[in-house]
C-alpha cells in the first residue's frame, strides 16, 4: 500500500522529499538527482537565478529543473524581512510560482534563521497571497505563531544547514509535531538517509535535503537512497512503530486472568 499523499496549500504531492539545488558539481548532475529522488518540490536560491528574464547563460540554474516539479523560490541571501519580501515579489514578477521558502539567516556563519524577521516577512507575504514555507529554528512557539498567521507549512531545522548532524533538535520538533495544524517539514542537517527516516518515524510530513545529496560522489544514487529512506520512514509511521522499551517484555501476558471466564 502506498504512503498517504502530502497536501500543502491544497496541492497534493506523492513524494514527501524536497530537494535543495545548491552545492551540486554541475547543473546536469543536479537534474539527474532531482529525477532520481522522485521529488515534486525543488527549492532554488533566487540570488543564483537570472531574474531579468533575459536567459543569462551564466546564471541558468533554472534550466536544469524538470518541468513537472514545483519550483519553490527561496529568499536565501536576505538579511531582513524587507529584503525577503522584495525577493519573493520579484520572483513572481519573473514568472515563478507564488510559493516561497522563506529563509532569512543574517548570520552567514551558522545560517541560523532570524525568528523576528521571519515572522514579520511571513505576515506580509501571507497577506499578499503567497504560500509561505518558513525555515525556522525548532521553536514550538514560533511554529505556532507562524501557523496562526497562515503559513503553508513550518520548516524547523534538524541541525544547522550543511552540518550533517541529523536531528539534534528532536525534543523541540516533537513538540512542534504535537501542536501542528500545517505540514511540518524537517529542513537542514539531514546528512544521511537514516536521518530522513528518523524524521518520518517521528511524524514529520516531509523533509528537505540538499548538501548530503549535492556533495555525494554519485548524487543521483544518493538521491534514490534518500527516496527509499523517506518512503520507509513514512510507511513505518503510518503503520505505527512498536514502542521501544529498555526491558524485554514478557511473552506470557500477566493480566489475562482478569478477562477469563473461569
Amino acid at each position: 500500500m502506498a504512503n498517504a499523499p502530502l497536501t500543502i496549500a491544497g496541492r497534493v504531492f506523492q513524494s514527501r522529499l524536497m530537494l535543495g539545488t545548491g552545492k551540486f558539481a554541475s547543473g546536469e548532475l543536479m537534474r539527474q538527482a532531482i529525477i532520481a529522488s522522485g521529488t515534486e518540490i525543488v527549492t532554488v536560491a533566487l540570488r543564483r537565478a537570472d531574474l531579468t528574464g533575459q536567459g543569462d547563460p551564466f546564471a541558468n540554474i533554472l534550466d536544469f529543473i524538470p518541468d513537472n516539479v514545483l519550483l519553490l523560490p527561496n529568499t536565501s541571501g536576505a538579511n531582513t524581512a524587507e529584503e525577503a519580501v522584495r525577493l519573493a515579489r520579484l520572483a513572481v514578477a519573473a514568472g515563478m510560482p507564488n510559493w516561497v521558502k522563506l529563509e532569512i539567516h543574517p548570520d552567514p556563519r551558522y545560517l541560523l534563521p532570524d525568528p523576528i524577521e521571519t515572522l514579520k516577512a511571513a505576515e506580509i507575504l501571507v497577506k499578499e497571497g503567497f504560500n509561505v514555507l518558513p525555515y525556522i529554528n525548532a521553536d514550538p512557539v514560533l511554529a505556532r505563531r507562524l501557523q496562526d498567521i497562515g503559513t503553508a507549512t513550518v520548516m524547523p531545522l534538524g541541525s544547522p544547514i550543511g552540518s550533517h548532524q541529523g536531528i539534534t533538535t528532536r525534543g523541540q520538533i516533537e513538540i512542534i509535531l504535537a501542536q501542528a495544524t500545517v505540514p511540518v517539514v524537517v529542513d537542514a542537517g539531514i546528512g544521511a538517509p537514516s536521518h530522513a527516516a528518523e524524521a518520518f518515524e517521528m511524524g514529520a510530513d516531509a523533509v528537505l535535503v540538499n548538501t548530503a545529496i549535492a556533495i555525494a560522489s554519485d548524487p543521483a544514487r544518493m538521491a534514490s537512497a534518500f527516496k527509499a529512506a523517506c518512503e520507509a520512514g513514512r510507511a513505518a509511521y503510518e503503520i505505527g512503530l512498536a514502542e521501544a522499551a529498555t526491558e524485554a517484555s514478557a511473552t506470557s501476558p500477566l493480566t489475562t486472568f482478569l478477562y477469563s471466564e473461569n
Partner: protein
Amino acid sequence: MHEIGARIRRNVHTQFSAILDALPQRKSPLMERFSALLETKSPAQLEAMARESRAITRRHFGRTMRLFAPLYLSNECVNNCKYCGFSRDNPILRVTLTIEQVVREARHLVAQGFRNILLVAGEHPRFVSDGYLDECIRAIRDFVPTIGIEVGPMEAPEYAQMVQAGAEGLVVYQETYDRALYAEMHTAGPKRDFDWRLACPERGYEGGFRRIGIGALFGLSDWRLEALRLAAHLEHLYRQCWKASFTVAFPRLRPAAGGFTPLTGFPDWALVQTLCAFRQCFPEVGIVVSTREPAKLRDALAPLGVTSMSAGSHTEPGGYTGAGTDDLHLTVRGRRVDLNDKADDARAEGQFGIADTRSPAAVASMLSAQGLDPVWKDWDPAILTPLSHSSGT
C-alpha cells in the same frame, strides 16, 4: 592633507588592537588550536589536514567555485608602499579611467561571464576623488549583479554611500599585522596609519557592507605569525560583525615595479597548511586565490578549501580593453606630467605581475573537469534595491 589628518583622528578605534598586541603570548582557545595547526607537520599530517579541509569545504560550500574579476580603475596613489607597483614615487605610466571607459571594461568582463566584479583603485584624493567611485558603481550596477570595492580606507558614512550606490563587498588587506614592519613598509601617505586601516573592516560593516574580505601579504613577516594575526582578526570580526560574511586571502608578493624582494619565504606547503588551518578553524569563511598564483598551483588548491577565484585578470587600468591608453601620463609630486613621447604599445603599469594567464573560460573548464561547478552569479542586487527602483514590481 588637513582633511585627511582630521579624518584619521576620528575613528581608528577597534577592540582588536589590544587582542593583536597581546599575540602570540595570549590567545583565545580557537587561536591556540589554529597555532597548533601551523606547527611543523609531516607530509602525512599535511595530507590529513588537506583531506579534512576538502571535506569541510564540500559540506559548507558544496562542489562549487565562485568566480570574479578585478577591474582596476586607477593606478594613481599618494602612498609609498615598498612592495607595490603603484607607489607614488615609482615613475610609472598612470591613468584613471573615465566612467565611459569603466563601463567598457565592465561590459567586456560581463561578456566573458563575470557577474561579480571587484573595483580596485590606488588611493589618491585628487584622481580618485569624491563621487568618482559612486559614479563608477552606479554606471555598472544595472548589468553587474555583484560589485565589490578595494580602495583606500574610508569612514563609515562614506562606506554607506558606496553601499547605497550599489556596492555589496569590501576588500581591505592589512598587508602586514606586524606594526614595526608595517611602519617600515609604508613610508609615505595616509596608509602609514596602521590603526586607521585595522579598524577599516568594522567601519565597512557599519557602513552596510555584508561581504568583507581581509588578508595579509605573505612574504613580509614570518608566515606563521602573520597567519595567526590574520586569523585572530577574523575571529574578532565574526564576533563584532555577525551579519557579514567574510573572505580571507593569503596573497604572496609578486614581482612589481620598484623591484621589491620578499623579506620572508612562504613556500607552497606553507600556503597549503595555512589554507587548511583557516578552513578547519573557520569552516564558513570564504577563501580567495587570485591569478597571482601560477595555474598549476591554483588547480591543486581549488578543491582544498578555496571558494572564490579570479580569472583572466589584469591589474592595470584599462587592461581588458586598452581603455585609457590615450591618457597615459606620469604623476610627480601629486601633479600630472604629460608624456612628450609615448610608444604605441604603452600601457598603464599593473599593480603586480599575473602568474595564471588563462582565460576565464579556460579556468571554468579546469574547474568543471575537477568536478567543481563554476558559479558566476551568486547574488542579486534586487535584494538591496528599494522596491520602487527594482524592475517588474
